[in-house]
Each structure stands twice: as C-alpha cells, then as structure tokens.
C-alpha cells in the first residue's frame, strides 16, 4: 500500500514536462552592500529552471539565461535578490546583509530550509556566531536563555557535564524527556552512558564549528520526526566551506575558572561550643541537672581532643579550611585552526581544535581534541555530493563521590564545607593527615577528602565519530532526490581506581573498575523533494523513507588487591571480582511525507504524516501514525496592509498534530528471563519482567497558535506562541500483587498537559552607520499538570485525598509533575527552642503526621524562564551581553541541611545558622536550638518538611563578550584578512535567594549533595584570518 503510493507519486513527478527558451551568456560580480567586498559562493539561479552556478573566489559568475529571464541570487546571511536580465550581458548585484530576523533562513529537517516568513510551525533559531568561544563544551549549554520554549539546566558545573534540556516542559513520567538531537542529518544517540563521570553526549561537537541551531517545538515543525519528536527536535547545522580564496583562521583563548562563593562555616572554637550545646540540650531533656562541662567534654572527645582542655586551651586550637583546599581556581584554554575555501565545483571546511578546562574543584577537568572535515562536490549540474565527518576524543576526570564513584560523603564538593575544622589537612611533614592506618579524620566524614581526591583516579574517555554522506540529485528542475547515510559511533572508556591508601579500598588493597562501551548508531534515509510554482500557487512536497538501528554493547570489570598503588590495571590485581557484558539495541523504520501549498505569498498550508515502526514496542502496537497540519496567513500581504510604513509584517500561524516518545528502553514489552542469578559459581536465571504485547508509544498532541509582527522596517519585531501540549498514553509501572512474582506491569495509562506562552521580542533602538544596538528578549511561561495516573490508586490520607503514584508524591493528579508535598515548617517555639510545624488544620505541632499533614509546596519545574540578549556594535567594537533568568523552581537544599545541623552530628555548621540559633527563652528565630541527633524527644526530626525547601529562582549575567575587530585596512597592512581580539566573562553575576553554592543543578538522586557548582569564567582571546 505504502509502496504503491510512493511509486505513483514518483510517476506523477517524472511525467511533468518542461520547456526551454533561447539562452544567452550573462556574467557579473556579486558584492556586499555593506563594504563592497566580493561575495564568493553566492548561488545564482535562473528563475523557473534548474540552472544554477555559484560565484567564484572574486564574486564573479557566468550563467546562460534567457534574455527576458530573471536571475535569483541567494547567500546565507544576505537577503535574496531577484534581478531581471532585460537583455543585458553583464549583471552586477549588491546583496544586503539580512540582520532582519524574519527573512532569515531556517533549517527545517531532512535538508529543508525556508525563510522564517514561510514557516507555519514554531521554530527557534540560535546562530553559531552568538555562542562562539563561550567556555562551554557542549552546545546545549549555549542555548540557555537564547531560545524561547527551551529550558536548559546544567546538572552541575563539571566541564562537559550533563545538561537537562526540556523543550516546552516535561511530557513524560517514566520515559525520557530528552529532545531528539540531529547534527547535519544524523540522529544522535543521546544516552549518557559514562559510568564514572558526568558526561554529555554532545561533547563530540566543537561549538565553534556550529553554523546554526534550530529547535523544532510544535507538532507542525517536529512531526516529520514522528515517534522521536515528542520532546522537541534540535537540529544542528555545522559550518561549510565557501567557494573562493582559501581562508585560514587561527583562534586562541585562555582564561580562568573560579568558584562563585564559599560558604561561611565555623571555626574550631565555635564548632566545639555548638556541639557541646547540642549534647547538653539533649542531656537536659531527660535530666534537668545535667552539667554543660560534661557535654563539653563529650564534644571534645568526640573529635579526639582531650576532654580536659581548659577554655584557654580550646581558644588556642587551630582551624583548618577544608573548603578552600577542596575548591580552587582553575584555567581554561582553547586552540582552533580552520581552513575553508573551494571553487565552483568543490568546497571544503577543515577544522581542528583542542580545548581544556578545569572545574572549580580540585582534580576535575575536561580535555578534548576535535577534527572536522566537510566536503561538497558538484559532480554534474544535477548531482551534488556532500560529506561531513566530526571526530573527537574527550577525556574528563570526575569527582570521587560523583556518579559511580562512591557515596557523596567522600565528594570534596560536599565534604569541603562539612569537615570538622579541627582536623588538619596535612601533617607537619607534608603527608596527609588522617589516613586509614591512623584511624581517619575526626567526625562523621572520617576520611581525608583531599587525600581521597588526590589519590583516586576517576576518568572517562569518549571517542566519537559522527559522519554523513549524502547526494543531492536534481531529477527535474522541480524534483530533487536525496539519499543520505549517517553514523554516530562512540566508544566510552571509563576507569575508576580506588587507591589502597584510601579508606574505601584500604581493606581490599585497591579496587579498579573499568567500563568499555561501544555504540553504533546507523541511520539512512532517502527523500524526494518537489516544488513547483504555477502563477500565484506554490506547491511543495517531501516524501521519504528512513531506517535507523542503534546498538550498544559493553564490558565492565571490577578487580581488587593490587601489589602497590602504582599498579592500577586489572591484570595486576589478585582478585577479579566481577566481569560484566551487555548488549542492547533497537531498530526503527519509517515513511513520511510533507505537502505544502502557498497561495499568493499570503496563505500557507502544510500537512505532515509519518508512519513509524520501532522494535521497542509490543507486537500489537509496533507501528503508529503521527500526523500534523498547520497553516499561516500573512496578513500584511493583504491589500489593506500592504505597503504600510509602520507594520511591515503581520502573520498568524496555527498548527495541530501529534508526535511520539519512544524513550522507554529497548525491551520493555517482552517477558524475559534474565541471567546473572548465579549460585555457587553456577549460572542462574530468573524471570525479570512480565510481557506486555500491547505496549505502545507515548503520544503528544500539540496545538499551537502563533503570530509574528514586525514594525518600522523590522526595527521592532514580536513573535508569540500559545501552545497546549497534551501528553497521553504515558507509560507507568502499575503495581500488581507481588504474590504473582512480579511487582508491576508497564502500561500506557497516564496523561499530562503543558500549557504555555512563548514570546520573542526584538528591537533595534539605535541604528546608525557607526553604532548599532540590537536587543532581544525572550520569555516562556509553562503550566504543567498531571491529569491522569492509573485507576485504583488509593488516595493519600490527607484532607484533600491526593491521588499520587504510590510511594512517589512527585506525581499527583491535578498537580504539576515533580510536585513537592511536604510538611510546613513554622519556625521555632520562642519558649523552648523546639522546631514547630503546621498540621493539616494549620495548628502548630512538634510532630507531624505522615501523610495527613502533607501539603503542596510547588514543584521543581520553573514557572517561567528566558533571556535577554544585547548586541552593540560601534566601529570595530562589539559588545554582547546575555542575561538569563529562571523563576519558580523549588528545590530542597540538601547540602545546607547537613550544614545546618548545628552540632546535632559531627559536621561543620554554617556561620549564619550558628549566629541565629535559639539560645534562650524569648529568642525569635527560625533556627531551632542545637540538639544531638537533630530529633527532640517526641518530636519530628529538625529537618522534616519545608525547612530546607528553597527558591531556586535566579537571574544571571550569563555572558558578556567584548570584541574588537581591527579595521580591514589595518589588517591588510599586516597581511591578514581579519584580526580580532576578544574578552569574555561567563556567569559574572547571579541574583538569587538560594543559600547553597548555586541554584542551578539537577537532582540526580542525592539532591545538591556533592554537586560541583557552576563556575565563573574569564577569557581573553585572539582570532586572525589569513
């Protein structure tokens, strides 16, 4: 059925006839209207034919065309021009640069590109030059604050670390929420599979090689990617060569990396005082006559000091700053060399880069080398072949206590502030204090974290190749056939060595863990693109088929007992503990079509249908159709508005369609027996899941209403989108009685809604010959709600009978996803110093009842977010400023909870908590009296409820870049085409009420405990082109 449709479409197209007129040869030169410089690589076509050439290195072209024909000139970054030949043989043309957003070309997927004016869907674009030289390793971080509807949160401040990207909110509970990334047509595997470090699957791409990034947000834009598009699609186009003189550009920058802030913690004397108070308050709870000195003695002995120290001796004790020793100012540097050029047949772009960056924490860094080749060759006037390849190797060193590297208690970012300050870091002879052989350090954190971070090795190297080869064949002037193959190949080598001198491996004499994963992600597709103009009618069509297979295979090992710490590899180990190996994979195939029709440059309509199959789904639901329809009306083209001096664009867009989410693991529908259940060294197996042949796609249905306005010759522009994204058939693990031998079954039962507004507002307040100031503001508001979970959930025994997933109140019907249900902290009883909470009826209580007293306290989803970019250029100077904001996200500050225990356990304490602690009846404060164990008699624990729930909203001066371009005459005098110097500051200033290191982090299970915070970076650099 599908086959016949496709064939008949082919036949229809082939049967089209076309006519040739009498031609003559025309030549000319294309220059830029700004500086009169020649423009090489401009595409020149004869309107209504397939004939086309590009200008050579000096901007000159030669083409044969009818004497009454029309030439079309197009070049990225410039406004398209149409010039009538009018019997001339020389046609020189000046192109105007298109800083005008609405005429800018937008990439739309499957090689498509159209002017923003012709869009019917919702797409945000970020230009490569805006993110150039930023101290980031993966381009996703560069999108932060720059695209409406796209929320970027760095999981941590590890260079090259994990980033959470959400396009138009979160639309799933148990499946993935990552958008589909496509680099030059290659759909990436965005699994983040390094076991020991925080690593980002996008690190392979040097951000300086990026030409543009497009984010497809609504169904009209994204449905062409069907089952993978529910979380949005991010298209990355890399730089290509331009015909003309060969340019060589060298770029170098270097900078420093520093911590935003240190937390102010107690010195030894204050800590002993507060610890003694905590012990004394506990003792007095049962024995009012308890002596303070007894508690002071216990406090001293608990950190291995003599219990008989006098006040004077205590006052003389030294304090050691573990935090300062853990965090440090690091450096960064980037080297880049690119060469690009070509002629009218072949163009090339070659680039090599090396960059390294430290984190703000000791022994954590990132190092990368990249190489890129892009070749374009015109085999014949009808056939173009393109080849691109990106190679990279990136090695990062991770934090002990990070993912897979031990518990966060050993993480320096966590323990630096929490170590008992009386512990020296080094002995007098410079050796480490508190080795396991000497009994460790005093306090709960009983290992010398500096020693641990110095001696252990935690690293991962990711080698990756992302390549594609494609052909573009013009079957007729209207019909283009494009076959494409791409591959995303990745090897991850992880290594985690726990040194035998550190406590975690002291008893086993060293432990080595290794990881070796290989991922082969292959994609091929073929598309036919048709376009035809008949009078005022423009038709466009795209049909295609696609196949993708994605296979991951890996080995891991763990071994123990090494002769000396110099031996680190498994073959030196006496005890091989375990060897692991896995294989997983999926295959997808699809057929898709897009039809477009435009009438008179005013009315556009576009329909997309994609039929997708995936091996991940149940036998009964293996295929699904994802359709969408969209239209737009350019009102300003209507006669009653056309030619207005004020309003130069008014456009209305409407789209409706459906997309799917297939990020549910590779084999969720199969009932399986798994291995790994060995007994007595003999292999065993056991059932690992119930089969569910009905398992199917999670489906998103999106309605989008948008309008675009431009006033005063594009000096003011406004785009706004209203959307409603309904996510249905969400996969939930519905519990079954475990007496059946299974705990749950995966079912497509949940639903969720995101409603939102996106606004992009641009204004050019100043535009003179010398001075231009452009300012863009974007804003996104999202209202997310879980609308359905499965039937039969027993409501929580709260006054409003919340229906939440059992054991997981983050998801409750009628509330946003990732909701926070907690107990309302109400400060301290001034009479007793005990913490109080409000119960379900709003009455103060010492002891809350779970779940009765649970109340809703927002969610960790932001209410609104966005950014504000400014670009000022004056003569050769350019200033770019980005302010980024995120409002309404709430998170528990887990790390500060430890730091607020006020001597309840042997952790150091925040100065602010110490200063504001309750000390005597009548004290009005929200910090309870210190109490050993942090739980008063017959009371709830001191950190129950919302006490540490904080507002993670912030506004950040994200990026300031100042560039000076040497005037071209001066540059030429030193035999250069271009020379620029630049300085950049990143994360310069943050306004927030968050009390920890930084509000921006992702809770990956341990909250912000041990999360390496973001850094402030300063960079200076130079770039010159020959």
């Amino acid at each position, binding site marked *: 059925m599908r086959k016949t449709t496709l064939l008949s479409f082919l036949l229809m197209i082939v049967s089209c006839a076309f006519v040739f007129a009498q031609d003559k040869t025309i030549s000319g030169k294309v220059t830029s209207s700004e500086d009169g410089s020649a423009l090489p690589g401009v595409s020149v076509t004869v309107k209504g034919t397939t004939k086309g050439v590009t200008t050579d290195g000096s901007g000159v072209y030669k083409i044969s065309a009818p004497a009454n024909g029309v030439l079309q000139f197009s070049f990225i970054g410039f406004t398209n021009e149409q010039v009538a030949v009018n019997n001339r043989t020389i046609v020189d043309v000046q192109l105007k640069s298109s800083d005008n957003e609405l005429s800018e070309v937008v990439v739309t997927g499957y090689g498509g590109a159209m002017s923003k004016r012709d869009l019917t869907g919702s797409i945000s674009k970020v230009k490569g030059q805006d993110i150039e030289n930023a101290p980031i390793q993966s381009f996703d971080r560069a999108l932060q604050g720059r695209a409406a509807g796209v929320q970027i949160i760095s999981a941590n401040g590890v260079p090259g670390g994990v980033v959470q990207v959400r396009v138009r909110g979160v639309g799933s509970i148990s499946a993935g929420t990552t958008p589909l990334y496509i680099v030059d047509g290659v759909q990436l595997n965005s699994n983040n599979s390094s076991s020991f470090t925080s690593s980002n699957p996008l690190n392979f791409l040097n951000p300086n090689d990026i030409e543009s990034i497009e984010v497809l947000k609504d169904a009209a834009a994204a449905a062409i990617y069907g089952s993978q598009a529910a979380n949005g699609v991010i298209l990355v186009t890399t730089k290509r060569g331009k015909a003309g003189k060969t340019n060589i550009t060298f770029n170098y920058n270097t900078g420093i990396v520093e911590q935003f802030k240190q937390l102010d913690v107690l010195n030894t004397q204050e800590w002993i005082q507060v610890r003694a108070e905590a012990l004394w308050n506990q003792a007095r709870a049962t024995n009012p006559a308890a002596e303070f000195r007894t508690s002071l003695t216990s406090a001293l002995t608990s950190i291995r000091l003599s219990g008989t120290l006098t006040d004077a001796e205590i006052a003389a004790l030294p304090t050691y700053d573990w935090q300062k020793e853990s965090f440090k100012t690091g450096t960064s540097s980037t080297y880049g060399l690119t060469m690009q050029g070509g002629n009218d047949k072949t163009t090339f772009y070659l680039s090599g880069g090396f960059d390294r960056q430290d984190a703000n924490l000791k022994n954590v860094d990132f190092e990368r080398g990249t190489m890129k080749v892009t070749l374009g060759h015109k085999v014949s006037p009808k056939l173009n072949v393109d080849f691109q390849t990106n190679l990279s190797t990136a090695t990062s060193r991770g934090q002990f206590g990070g993912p897979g590297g031990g518990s966060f208690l050993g993480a320096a970012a966590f323990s630096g502030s929490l170590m008992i300050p009386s512990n020296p870091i080094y002995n007098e002879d410079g050796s480490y204090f508190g080795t396991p052989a000497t009994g460790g350090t005093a306090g709960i954190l009983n290992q010398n974290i500096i020693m641990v971070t110095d001696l252990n090795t935690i690293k991962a190297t990711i080698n990756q190749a992302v390549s594609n080869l494609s052909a573009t064949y013009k079957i007729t002037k209207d019909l283009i056939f494009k*076959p494409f193959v791409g591959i995303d190949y990745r090897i991850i080598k992880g290594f985690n060595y726990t040194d035998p001198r550190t406590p975690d491996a002291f008893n086993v004499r060293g432990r080595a863990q290794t990881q070796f994963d290989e991922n082969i992600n292959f994609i091929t597709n073929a598309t036919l693109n048709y376009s035809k103009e008949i009078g005022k009618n423009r038709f466009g069509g795209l049909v295609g*088929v696609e196949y993708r297979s994605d296979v991951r295979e890996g080995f891991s090992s763990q071994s123990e007992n090494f002769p000396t710490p110099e031996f680190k590899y498994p073959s030196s180990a006496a005890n091989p503990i375990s060897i692991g190996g896995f294989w997983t994979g999926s295959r997808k195939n699809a057929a898709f079509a897009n039809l477009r029709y435009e009438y008179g440059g005013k009315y556009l309509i576009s329909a997309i249908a994609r039929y997708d199959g995936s091996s991940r789904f149940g036998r009964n639901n293996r295929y699904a159709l994802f359709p969408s329809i969209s239209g737009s009306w350019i009102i300003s083209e209507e006669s009653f508005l056309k030619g207005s001096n004020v309003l130069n664009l008014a456009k209305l867009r409407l789209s409706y369609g459906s997309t799917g989410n297939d990020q549910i693991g590779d084999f969720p529908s199969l*009932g399986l027996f798994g291995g790994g259940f060995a007994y007595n060294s*003999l292999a065993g197996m*056991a059932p690992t899941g119930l089969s569910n042949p009905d398992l199917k796609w999670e489906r998103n249905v999106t309605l989008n209403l948008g309008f675009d306005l431009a006033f005063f010759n594009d000096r003011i522009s406004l785009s706004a989108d209203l959307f409603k994204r309904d996510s249905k058939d969400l996969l939930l693990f519905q519990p*079954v009685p475990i007496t059946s031998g*299974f705990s749950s079954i995966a079912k497509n039962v949940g639903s969720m809604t995101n409603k939102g507004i996106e606004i992009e507002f641009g204004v050019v307040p100043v535009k003179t010959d010398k001075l231009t100031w452009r300012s863009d503001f974007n804003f996104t508001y999202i209202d997310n709600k879980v609308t359905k979970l499965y039937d039969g959930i027993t409501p929580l025994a709260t006054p409003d009978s919340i229906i939440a997933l059992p054991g997981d109140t983050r998801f409750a019907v009628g509330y946003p996803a990732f909701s926070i249900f907690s107990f309302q902290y109400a400060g301290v009883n001034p009479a007793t110093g005990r913490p109080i909470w409000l119960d379900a009826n709003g009455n103060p209580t010492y002891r809350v009842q779970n779940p009765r007293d649970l109340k809703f306290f927002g969610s960790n989803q932001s209410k609104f977010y966005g950014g504000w970019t400014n670009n000022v250029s004056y003569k050769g100077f350019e200033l770019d400023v980005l302010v980024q904001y995120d409002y309404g996200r709430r998170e528990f500050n887990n790390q500060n909870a430890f730091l607020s225990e006020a001597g309840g356990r042997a952790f150091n304490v925040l100065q602010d908590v110490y200063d504001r602690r309750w000390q005597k009846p009548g004290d009005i404060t929200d910090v309870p009296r210190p109490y050993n164990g942090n739980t008063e008699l017959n009371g709830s624990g001191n950190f129950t409820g919302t006490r540490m729930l904080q507002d993670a909203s912030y506004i950040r001066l994200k990026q300031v870049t100042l560039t000076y371009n040497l005037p071209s005459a001066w540059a030429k005098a030193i035999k250069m085409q271009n020379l620029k110097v630049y300085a950049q500051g990143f994360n310069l200033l943050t306004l927030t009420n968050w009390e920890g290191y930084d509000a921006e982090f992702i809770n990956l299970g341990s909250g912000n405990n041990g999360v390496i915070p973001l850094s402030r970076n300063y960079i200076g650099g130079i770039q010159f082109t020959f």
Partner: protein
Amino acid sequence: MKKYNFLKYYVLSLVLLSTSCENMLEVKPRQSIDSATALTTSDAISGAINGVYDRLQSTNLYGRDFVAIPEALSDNGRATNKSGRLNAEFNNQAGAHFGNWGTAYIAINQVNLIIDALPSVKDMTQAAKDAAEGECKFLRALLYFDLMRAYAYDPGAEVPQYNRGGVPLMLTGVIDPSQITFPERATVKAVYDQMYKDLTDAIAKIPAARKNIVYASQGAAQALFSRIALYNKDYATAVKQSTDGLASGVGRFVDNAGYVQAWRVAQHPESMFEVIYTTPENIGVNLSLQTTYTTLVELGNRARTGGFGDLVPTANLLAALESEKEGTRVLDIRRQLYELGTAGRGTAEIECTKFLGRSGAVNLDNVPVIRFSELYFNRAEANYMLGNEADALRDLNIVRTRAGLPARTADLKGQALLDEILKQRRLEFAFEGQRWFDLKRRGQDIVKLPLTIPFTDFRILAQIPTGEINNNPKLRQNFGY
C-alpha cells in the same frame, strides 16, 4: 545516466526494507531470553533452580535479615547505633521487622514456574525431573516457612482476636499478565499442610546420594521438616524427622575440640543446608553479617576496624553464656565466639564473631540455615512435650557436654528440664536467627531492655507491605498496622 542507477537501487531497497519486512523490527535481547520458551531444556531448568537459590542470598532473606533481625527484635541483640542500622528493630518500632514478603513470593513464583515446566522438558530423564522437583519443593517449603514465621502466628500460639490467618498460597507459576490473581490469606493449617506435602515429596524425590550442603538434600529436608513440625507442635513428626535427619549423612556433629574452629572455616561442618556466597556476591560494608555483628576484620586485632558492629550481645545473653563457671573460668566454649571489638566506630563492645569473612574475604560468609545440632534440640524439646523426659535429657546432655558443660542427671525434670533445653537452644543458636521465632512459637513475651514486648502486642507479627494491601483488596493486613 547509467552511472546513477545506484540511486534507483538504493531507493528501491530502502522502500523494500522499510515497508515490506516487518521482521526487521524483531530485535531480541541478548542477555535475556523470551520467557515463553525459557524453561524447555535441562540446562535451563538447572539455571532456573540456581536462580531460586540466588534469591536466598538476598539481604532480606539469608543475606542478613533472617539471621540478624530475630536477634535484634528479641532479647539477644542490642543495637549500638554505630551506623544506625537495626536500631528500630532493636527498639521494636512498629514496622521495623522482617521484609521478606516480596523476595519470597518472587522466588516462590520461580519455583512454581519450574515445577509447571518440568513435565514438558524433553532432554531430562524422569529421575532427573523428580530430583529437580524435590529440590524445588524443599525451597518452596523453606520460603513459605519464612513467610509464615514473619507474618503469621504459629499454630497453637495465637492471639485469637488478632489472628488473620496464614499467607496466600501460590502454587502455580505466573509469566503472563493474564495469570495474575488477587489471592486472600490461606489458613495457617492450609499453609502447614502444603509445607508438609512439599517436604514429604522432597524427601521422597531428592536422591539420597546428594549430600552437598549448599543445595537441598534429603537430610536438609528432614531437618527443615523437624523444625516445621516443632513449630506446628506436631511433636511425633518432629521426633521422627529429627532422627531421620541425624541419620541422613548430611552434616555432622562437631565435638568440643572442634567447636570454635567450626566457625572459622568457610563451610560450617554442622551445616545441613547452608547458603553459599562467592566472591562477587559479597554483601559489603553496609549490610553483611560481618559488618552487622562486628567491627573486627580479624580475630584479636583491635587496631584494624572493618565494619560497623551494629548489633552486639545483650548483657543478659552474655550472662547466660557465663552462667556456668569453674572458679572464674567460664565453662561454656560458646562464649569464645564473642570478643571485644575495636573502638574505630565508637565505644568498643563485646561482639559476636560467628561471621568473620570465613569465605576468605572481608564481609564474605556462608550462612548456615540448619545445623546438625538443631536436630538434637528439636528432638529433645519434642520428646519432652511428648512426655519422654529421659530421651529429652539424653539429647540435652549431648549438646551440653559438647559445649563444655557438665552433663545433667535425671534430677533435671519437668519445667526445669524444658527451661534448660530452651536456654541451651538460645546459647547454641545465638546470632544465628532463631531466638525471636523460638519465643514467638511458644507464645512467650519478649523480655528485654528497655521495654518488654508482651506476646499480645501487635508488633509480634510483621507488617504486610502496604502497597500489597492497596493492590489486592482481598488481602488483610495484620492487626495494628
């Protein structure tokens, strides 16, 4: 034009690939197999049986809980708060109890699937099938017994107004969602009848030649049967199964000279069934029995701290171990299995050293489930209850003299004899997971510090997981939860 023919072939092959062959989307996992056809060969059956033993290693079965929690809940163990673990169990907080419900039923389903699959396996002889079935039934009886001990009253020791019966009896395998049922709790009697049946089959079907103590054997089944019969107050059966077990050739009685050393080797020579742990199965520094019981890494070396030592003997238990002396010398050799730990995790305590990395690595110990000596205790108690005091005394003296204590004469009789049997049972199996159950099956109060738990307290029984009650309306929660 000809040179572009490849394009035609390319598009043709793509169209064919994507549209005509659905098989392309059949991707099979490679480290798992389809459950529908998993259990069709002899190798698969052996693998699946190993998969059941593997569950026994879980920390909520024999990895920790069924050894340590009966000590924490009862009067044998005291929590030290060094890691905070087992504090709640020691304080008998509501809900701090056994949590084997899920693991046990998952394992029972594995057993049921194997028993269901056996008749259609082609490459196994009937004898091999019988042996596999017997082994499975031993495991099923053990799993049900542990469920019953945790979640239900033992026969004849109930608080009638709180008694909500036994546990759901699942006897057929579930592999498909359509097979899921919502069972109610079976009566205590029905579950005991099933365990009797399973053990009778196990004894009949497991070949007598199988004597490897890390697997089911006739001897293991007889030993388990004797214990279950004792719990069931079916004393004649208890005597018979004990006697059969003692003659089974599985496990052996260790004499006084070898007694302490028996706890220093990987396999306890008395074990009639033992759960073995190999190097990769090390439970580690948080939950292993070694870390639970002691801070020591090796005997007598107080300079080197390993685990937490979360649960140590109560003063009451130590006093009982030291109750018989010659001058100042403690006679009871079992006292030698307790020694002063390190100060590395806080105050040094006298700790139990029965689990000390006996399998050659720190935190790696095999766990004896039933020891040969228990059969003497089971038979002594059963004989006493049947009125055969002389037989009871004879068995008691076997274990007393082995412990280094003088034999008692026929003067010891009546309640005093029973008390002595129970006292020796406590001392013999301290920190091996029997104490709580021995008190509970006899309907005794748990006399401990800081407070006594009367037998009528609801905390005698464990809480059925609340999720399970929510998912299955027919299932009744234990009283009080």
